[in-house]
């Protein structure tokens, strides 16, 4: 099972009452640390940028705005951007952990498996053929695309005995992404205006998004998180294998469908808002499993918080390294996440879920 992530450092012990108590306080401690980190990164995200704002001014702008220049920058630009980053980070982190749980595959992740590109292709289709322009209009296309791509991935994940190897799933992701990218280019090439909008969206960025977008995706995000929370106990049983889960009274199909719906909502909302951002779910799910162990009831919230921290941190880094311009968060994450992916692949024994 998932213990391989911690290596052979800890001997298997029969957990007694005190162990469980200690483990719980450890997990709560980690969640608190992540929350603290999130606050720190959030403040940095508000303060850092083309126009640096001292923390004192940030504080004033948040709690007692007087309408000065700093106040306007903070309240109309930085705060919505930070909120969007937190939301998308949580969504992608939880979606990544859910996908790894359902496919029992250490390389599963919405970006790498083509779910994000599925959402992206449908969004482009919606914009081009139906002339949809508002986020609330095309978020439904994003859901449809994420759903179709997730179904393909889940089907491949349930083919045959023992499920697919990491290679199979990763390559399926490559195939799906490649196909969707080609179809998307066929559409955007027909129309330069669409291409101009598409290329800024395709790179995966928090910049230049309308201030109301964070609020608009919130309901979908909340629905997705509720479904994920409902799904967590079922995932714990599915980790024992489908047969075992069924034997223990689990409705496997229902659990799968709940997971599918949660992944669809979370990824679709994130992609509709920010474009396809890869590697967050991958990095964060492994990190969370390393911290909390294999229990999905703890793993999912940890992955969500860590995802928000990672995404915001990457966004802040992207604003600092390429002044006066900025490096989009999707690029920063690819440059950080791909080495992590290679590291996972190079381990002597592939992590098994």
């Amino acid at each position: 099972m998932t213990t391989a992530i911690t290596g052979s450092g800890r001997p298997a012990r029969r957990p007694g009452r005190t162990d469980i108590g200690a483990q719980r306080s450890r997990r709560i401690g980690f969640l608190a640390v992540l929350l603290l980190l999130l606050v720190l990164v959030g403040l940095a995200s508000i303060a850092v940028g083309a126009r640096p704002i001292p923390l004192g001014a940030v504080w004033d702008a948040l709690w007692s705005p007087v309408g000065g220049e700093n106040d306007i920058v903070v309240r109309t630009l930085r705060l919505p951007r930070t909120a969007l980053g937190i939301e998308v980070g949580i969504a992608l982190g939880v979606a990544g952990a859910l996908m790894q749980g359902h496919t029992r595959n250490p390389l599963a992740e919405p970006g790498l498996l083509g779910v994000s590109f599925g959402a992206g292709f449908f969004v482009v289709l919606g914009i081009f053929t139906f002339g949809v322009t508002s986020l609330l209009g095309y978020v439904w296309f994003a859901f449809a695309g994420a759903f179709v791509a997730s179904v393909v991935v889940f089907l491949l994940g349930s083919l045959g005995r023992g499920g697919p190897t990491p290679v199979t799933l990763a390559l399926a992701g490559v195939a799906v992404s490649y196909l969707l990218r080609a179809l998307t280019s066929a559409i955007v090439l027909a129309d330069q205006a669409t291409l101009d909008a598409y290329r800024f969206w395709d790179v995966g960025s928090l910049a230049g998004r309308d201030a109301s977008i964070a609020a608009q995706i919130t309901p979908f995000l909340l629905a997705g998180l509720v479904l994920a929370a409902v799904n967590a106990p079922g995932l714990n049983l599915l980790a024992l294998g489908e047969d075992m889960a069924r034997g223990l009274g689990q409705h496997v199909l229902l659990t799968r469908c709940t997971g599918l719906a949660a992944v669809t909502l979370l990824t679709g909302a994130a992609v509709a808002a920010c474009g396809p951002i890869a590697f967050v779910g991958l990095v964060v799910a492994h990190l969370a499993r390393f911290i909390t162990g294999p229990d999905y009831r703890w793993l999912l919230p940890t992955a969500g918080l860590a995802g928000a921290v990672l995404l915001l941190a990457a966004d802040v880094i992207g604003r600092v390294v390429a002044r006066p311009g900025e490096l989009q968060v999707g690029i920063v994450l690819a440059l950080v996440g791909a080495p992590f992916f290679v590291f996972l692949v190079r381990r002597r024994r592939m992590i098994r879920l």
Partner: protein
Amino acid sequence: MTGTGLAVPGRPPIRAGGFSGVWRPRLVTVTLVGVGLLVLVAAVNIGRGEFPISVGDVLGALVGGGDRAQRFIVLQLRLPRTLTGLLVGAALGMAGAITQAITRNPLASPDLLGVTGAAGTAAVAVIAFGGGSGVVVGALAQVGLPIAALLGGLLAAVLVYGLAYRRGVVSDRLVLVGVGVNAVAVAITSWLLVVANINQATQATVWLTGSLDGRDWAHVVPVAVALALLVPTGLRLSFGLGALALGDDTASALGVRVNRYRVALGLVALTLAAVATASAGPIGFVALVVPQICQRLVGASTPPLVTSAVYGALLTVSADLIARTALPAELPVGIVTAVLGAPYLLYLLGRRNRGVRL
């Protein structure tokens, strides 16, 4: 052509100078049928356009017949496009066959290993930073684009091989590291598209889908020269592939210097793929799909090189024909190969999952 006592029944050996092999009627038949179909499809593709020319007239013009107008249209205007597609397809097919044979992995191909992705990134960098600032720089960019693509592809190959190396290369790890490197290449490409101005971005996007549009003789020559050098080299080196298919240990015991041999053949495959990418953009899935289909058609144990080259050319030219006729607007050929190839890859993966080793 004399038999020896060690001949396999039903497989008469053929020897001529340094060359030796066995007579495989199925291989020869399949290859010849492929050549015939290729000539036919190429002629149909050349015949299509504003001024339609029948297949017979196209073939006549190609061998020197027909009237002057037909000869001009066929030889000067339309042949370069089809010929580029044909050569690029052949290069991709052979590159894929070599890659799959030396890694013993049906899923290994230059496009999955990140080679074409990185070549694309390098080319987009040239388009984004090189073009648009004066005639001289523009001309330099035109010369530089294929070379940049070649260097990008080689860099990616070295990176993938180096990162996947850990007391030998396990082919699954090679593929996965390729996926990772490819992801970085794609990310950098989309960043370059944002940095570039919109006209360069359009040009780069067309190039990135793999297009045969507007190819003239200047595009044909480099890829033809590269093929003329690389195909014989690859064939000359391919004698040990049969031994390699038995596993590294057995191959070493049979006298094949496994690592040196693999690097040499790998270099040939890579250069073929990078040259193809440089002249027509990253046309996806040809290198992946064709060797597998040919292996089944021929009934061989490893992907056959020459047959893969022929069918790679056939697939690319047919895809170009489909791309030009299927929809009212002309599509880049790479979209058609992606639409045909991606489902096939998913099918291969599904089969592999059910415990069928390819």
